[in-house]
């Protein structure tokens, strides 16, 4: 069910995660909320899965709205391996 999602975005707080989910869904960008995977040790417990094909558009939407994400990871097909691609720079 989640194999189509190959990117994971973490947030600085759950408020930003909730806003991001609403904004991206409103833009027609398919996302899936999930608790922060145990493989990733960060403070906020809420992340979003998205597809790499929509990554640039999603980040642009969040930037325009002032949503602060934390880290962007790639996610492999097992859904258990994550590699950090970028950090939020404002």
């Amino acid at each position, binding site marked *: 069910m989640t194999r189509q999602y190959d990117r994971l975005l973490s947030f600085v707080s759950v408020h930003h995660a*909730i806003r991001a989910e609403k904004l991206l869904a409103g833009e027609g960008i398919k996302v899936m909320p999930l608790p922060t*995977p145990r493989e990733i040790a960060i403070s906020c417990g809420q992340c979003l899965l998205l597809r790499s094909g929509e990554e640039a558009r999603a980040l642009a939407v969040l930037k325009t709205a002032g949503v602060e994400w934390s880290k962007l990871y790639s996610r492999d097909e097992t859904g258990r*391996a994550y590699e950090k691609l970028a950090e939020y720079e404002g």
Partner: protein
Amino acid sequence: MSTEIDARGLACPQPVIQAKKALDSIEQGSVTVIVDNAVAKENVAKLARANRCGLSIEEKDGHFYLRLTKDSGRQTPDGIPAARTVYLIAKNTLGHGNDELGAVLMKSFFFTLQAGDSVPAAVMFINAGVELAVDSSPVLDHLKALSAKGTEIMSCGTCLDYFGLKERLAIGEISNMYDILARLEGAGKAITLS
């Protein structure tokens, strides 16, 4: 439990051997391996995948930090496997205090439940919980995934009727209090979210 191995400067296959030794020594927990080249990074990542471990990789100043996580499968603390557990869900959000947060937590709950190797025997919805089993449910995909793995999904018919949602049931069966009680009493472990 968490272990750190600094394998910088070590020649192949030393980083993999040390990581394997550390993984073998723990039942569950994490092992962080620090390496200084891409080949070692790939080899330790392969080890993680071969051992069905979780993996996160971060690069700092040209060094790679690989965190391998090992768990022994989800079991309830008294050892009853998840497959004999039934859930009674009596609310469409999780917890009390704030419904927006409660909706987020409920989505996280079902995401985590369906992602496990072992899924519960049944998930049963009563009262406003039935809103989670209708066509507008934010957790419908997760319930479909649970159903595909063998979990029985049941919704209280009286409750669907009360909320005018009978025609909109999108997953599982309409049930009654007899069936719900039978599942609760026959369960290895029954968990109620209300």
